[in-house]
């Protein structure tokens, strides 16, 4: 039922308009922290998510549809009505492990929070990956969430179903913080929900990231999802203050903010959280120790989660140094210049100030990480590319880096051994994507004269991609824009193929496909005049077949070699500002992918018996959590 109809004073409501937010109660972390005296006080949070006028039972809203079917139990659970007055009056129903309706409320609330921080950072509306059918790409309005889809210690984003599947499982028999053999619900872990939602958001922007052509790609997916989940901790003020007070302001020491999925980790028999950006419990002593950055780890760790956690650690350490530099003055003020805190609890005012600096630093770092996505190459992305994208995006939006954020990132990445292959020095200037040679900068301008139909369509695209607009209309405009740009790419680009990292059809290589305009979207930046501007990001990709390198003659497997470019175009001048290339003609890149394809996956029984069919992209996340202990060798 609609609350407006039930209200006796409709006129007044109309005058006031809908409220900006809906408040919903959730677990700040997961139910396991509810049962400890120390953390119980902060484990229940009320979060604010954008008010949705037409929120249906489920909840089913603009972005999400929660459908609570539990096939393993042969059951469904009644969908929650978040608009019921009793529910509204109480900020949603009370956190409870035993009530499936609270589970629905929590997945909805946490996923919406994640979507909103994405949209805020990017400055434009989020779209889910389209559904490919024989009739073409279809708009997917809502991501599906199944809170009780699996009976397994697993949760994943399914790109084929455009859905998040959460599992539940009995905890291990070892009594710890959980009831031995009691049920653990992954959909009640704030981190797991944020993590999986991020996978879906990232897939909506960069679909080719799920076609790994190097060891970094799936790892980047995992890392990015972890980063978003981690920094979401800092949006909960009570938790933040509590942890700042507990660590006496030192966020580099063991704390809940840097840990992911405590209950999941412990219930499956690990000592601590599933992943910890700062350190780990020493398996021998059972004591938490900070992890020292190991610059060589990147060449020895290939399992996607483990490799991803290297990137997470780098980002987190960038955050810590930003936070430290932002709070150095506060500490000096509070300690009469010594910088040495006295023993005992910190003054609540200082805790509040430190917490607000931490929240601000976290927000900035998270937004930098998200904005980098607009500047990532469409295919074959590496951690190094990601760093370059991050620096470029930040330079474009914050021309003046007086707080040294970019330096903090570069330093943290360097200490973790993450840097791009193709730069000469690790300075901001050389890390920024390089502008295209001047002769080519006008390519787009030449093709799109003033007042042309194309220019109007593009202008319309930018206008429509407003945060308040109808998402289906945005999708349609993008599709028509893409079709127009495709014409442009097909007819006008071949003469300049090489400079753009493409290969013209006369190369007559086996299985060479024509260029495809894979993505079009806006990117925000701040012009020299301080005004906010929108650039246009156009991704052009291409692929061809290449034979695998294996030295035995009876093996004739082949793989897809993908390349292309991402053009970032200033729409006012129609000049190409950057061209991020993954050249189809690059011999070294081909060799790297060939080596990677030879290794394909980690050696394991899994890859022996369940060899995925060629180009299988069905459920890349479903079985990432395989058996442990059988993946040491690196072939």
């Amino acid at each position, binding site marked *: 039922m609609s609350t407006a109809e039930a209200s006796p004073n409709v006129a007044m409501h109309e005058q006031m308009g809908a409220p900006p937010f809906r408040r919903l109660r959730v677990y700040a972390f997961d139910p396991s922290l509810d049962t400890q005296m120390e953390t119980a006080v902060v484990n229940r949070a009320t979060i604010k998510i954008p008010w949705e006028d037409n929120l249906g039972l489920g909840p*089913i809203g603009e972005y999400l*549809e929660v*459908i609570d*079917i539990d*096939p*393993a*139990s*042969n*059951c*469904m*659970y*009644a*969908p929650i009505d978040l608009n019921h007055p009793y529910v509204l009056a109480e900020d949603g129903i009370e956190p409870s492990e*035993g*009530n*499936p309706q609270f589970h629905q409320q929590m997945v909805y609330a946490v996923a919406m929070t994640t979507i909103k921080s994405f949209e805020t950072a990017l400055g434009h509306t989020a779209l889910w990956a389209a*559904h490919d059918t024989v009739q073409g790409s279809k708009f997917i309005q809502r991501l599906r969430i199944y809170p*009780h889809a*699996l*009976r*397994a*210690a*697993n949760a994943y984003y399914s790109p*084929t*179903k455009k*859905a998040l599947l959460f599992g539940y*499982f*009995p*905890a*291990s*028999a*070892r009594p710890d913080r959980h009831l031995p053999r009691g049920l653990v619900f992954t959909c009640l872990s704030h981190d797991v929900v944020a993590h999986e939602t991020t996978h879906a958001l990232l897939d909506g922007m960069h679909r080719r990231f799920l076609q790994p052509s190097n060891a970094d790609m799936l790892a980047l997916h995992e890392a990015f999802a972890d980063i978003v989940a981690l920094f979401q901790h800092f949006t909960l003020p009570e938790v933040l203050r509590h942890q700042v007070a507990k660590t006496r302001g030192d966020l580099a020491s063991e704390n809940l903010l840097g840990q992911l999925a405590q209950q999941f980790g412990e*219930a*499956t*028999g690990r000592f601590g959280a599933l992943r910890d950006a700062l350190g780990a419990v020493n398996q021998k002593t059972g004591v938490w120790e900070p992890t020292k950055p190991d610059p060589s780890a990147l060449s020895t760790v290939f399992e996607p989660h483990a490799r991803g956690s290297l990137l997470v650690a780098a980002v987190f350490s960038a955050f810590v140094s930003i936070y430290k530099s932002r709070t150095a003055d506060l500490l000096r003020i509070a300690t009469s210049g010594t910088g040495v805190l006295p023993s005992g609890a910190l003054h609540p005012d200082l805790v509040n100030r430190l917490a607000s600096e931490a929240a601000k630093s976290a927000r900035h770092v998270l937004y930098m990480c998200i904005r980098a996505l607009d500047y990532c190459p469409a295919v074959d992305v590496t951690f190094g590319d990601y760093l370059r994208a991050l620096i470029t995006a930040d330079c474009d939006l914050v021309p003046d880096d007086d707080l040294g954020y970019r330096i903090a990132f570069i330093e943290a990445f360097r200490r973790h051994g993450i840097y791009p292959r193709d730069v000469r020095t690790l300075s901001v200037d050389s890390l920024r994507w390089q502008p295209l040679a001047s002769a080519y900068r006008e390519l787009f301008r030449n093709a799109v004269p003033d007042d042309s139909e194309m220019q109007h369509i593009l202008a319309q695209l930018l206008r429509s991609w407003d945060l308040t607009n109808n998402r289906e209309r945005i999708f349609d405009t993008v599709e028509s824009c893409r079709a127009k740009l495709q014409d442009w790419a097909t007819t006008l680009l071949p003469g300049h193929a090489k400079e753009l990292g493409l290969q013209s059809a006369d190369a007559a290589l086996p299985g060479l496909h024509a260029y495809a305009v894979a993505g079009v979207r806006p990117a925000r930046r701040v012009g020299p005049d301080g005004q906010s501007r929108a650039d246009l990001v156009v991704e052009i990709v291409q692929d061809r077949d290449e034979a695998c390198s*294996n030295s*035995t003659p*009876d*093996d004739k497997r082949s793989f897809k070699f993908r390349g292309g470019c991402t053009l970032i175009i200033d729409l006012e001048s129609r000049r190409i500002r950057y061209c991020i290339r993954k050249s189809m003609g690059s011999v070294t890149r081909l060799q790297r992918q060939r080596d990677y394809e030879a290794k394909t996956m*980690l*050696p394991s*029984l899994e*890859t*022996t*018996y*369940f*060899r*995925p069919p060629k180009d299988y992209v*069905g459920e890349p996340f479903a*079985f990432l959590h*395989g*058996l*442990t*202990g*059988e*993946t*040491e*060798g*690196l*072939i």
Partner: protein
Amino acid sequence: MTPTVGTGVTVTIRMYRQGLGDCFLLHFAPKAGAAGAEVWVLIDCGVLADEDGTRIRAVAEDIRATTQRLDIVVVTHAHWDHISGFAHARDVFESMEIGEVWLPSTEDPGNGPACALKARRLRELSTLRGLLQSERVRNSPLMIPSVASVMRLFGECTPREGEREGTIPSAEFESALAFLNDATKRTVRYLDSRDQPAPLAGLLGVRVYALGPQRHEPVRGGTLNPDGGSNDERATLDLGVAFLAAAQAQLVGMDEADQLLYKDVLEQLMPFEPHYRCPVEPTLLELGAAPGPSWSASLSPKARARTTKSYLGSGNAWRSIDDDWLGITRTLTLALDQDINNSSLALAFELGDNGKVLLFPGDAQLSSWNTWNLLEWEVPPEPGAAGSPRKISAVDLIRRTQVYKVAHNCSAGATPLAKGLDMMQRADLVALLPVSATAAASFDWNLPHQPLLARLYERARGRVLRSDQTVQWLDARGEAGDSVWQNFRAHVRDDNPLYYEYTAG
């Protein structure tokens, strides 16, 4: 200095070429003038995709034609591709004289923890079998058909007329195990890494070491840690099996007695109290007659229809998740397979003190190899020889390996590099690889793993005897002018299409 007696022994290793499976006949013979009697050792005898047993019978007949007596029959682990011969050609082996049977200690009926493991394994297997009877499970898109093919290792085989694939618990499998464990006719020994290395059947100069399996010990909480991995992780999976049993109940149906037995278990596994549960639309999940959980209809038929509509309505069936939860069958199958592979009786035959080593690791996976790195034995001098006990480590044995039986048909997870292949430093290293790429491909298995194979060729300088390749193919891999190659080729016998023979020492 004591003369190195081992140099007085010639070992001929016959690798049968029956297909995807292992069968090795080792002949240890004292050289002319040296003391001692000859010893025949058979290591495994099995093959996959040989439903009527024709091929493995031919192998067994050939063994009997070669020798009437087998001093030792070693079975590395109880997988069909290692034991099918003891079922299909049981009569042939019964007609031969067998001195001893060696099995991994995990098969020992007197080994309590191992028996508990085995009982659990059987439960899990029967659950999987039950599930595989369901058309829905077998046709699930999550590559679950592969599960059926892995079940072949446990003796499931291609159906006979009127039967469905992957559903027949093979009576032959039990028959082979019964034959091997029969201690009334011969000595049956159960070995593991705790056993003291011993001279082979009284033959001077040949010493046998068991690198695996590890002897299982009860650990915290009374549960077992069969694979060196996380104990609790396995326990979690254990409970996943209970979930699967529930699935079996749903999908396949159970008879009334079992229903009563499982009723409480099924109820315990429900995530929410009965008053939260609503039955799904009968058509929704296409269930058969299931002993469904108890529920109360907290959702009106209209509301139920509405949920069903948002789940499947307006062309949304492609987003349904009816079967996704069955993905756990994959994890379970792999865990089962891994448990057995890692219980492999891995043997190293040392020819003479500090001499060359023949390494037969069975199908040990990487986590087994990891435990070998810590193994060390104190070895007394040969009877009658002078000297003090030596300390021999497994690492030392791997380093001295001259003949390596490639573990697990050259799969990706069974031969480590740093802790395995790269440690084998002898310039005359020879690898014996029983495999059939064709059979593996027919199950869509990734065998042999090409990168590992390439590495093997590199380490052994082309001296890899592959059971599924011809001798011409082999010769294309070596350099005719190379003296080590010539020496190797001179020791390979290829005149019988049934086997390759390599003579070492």
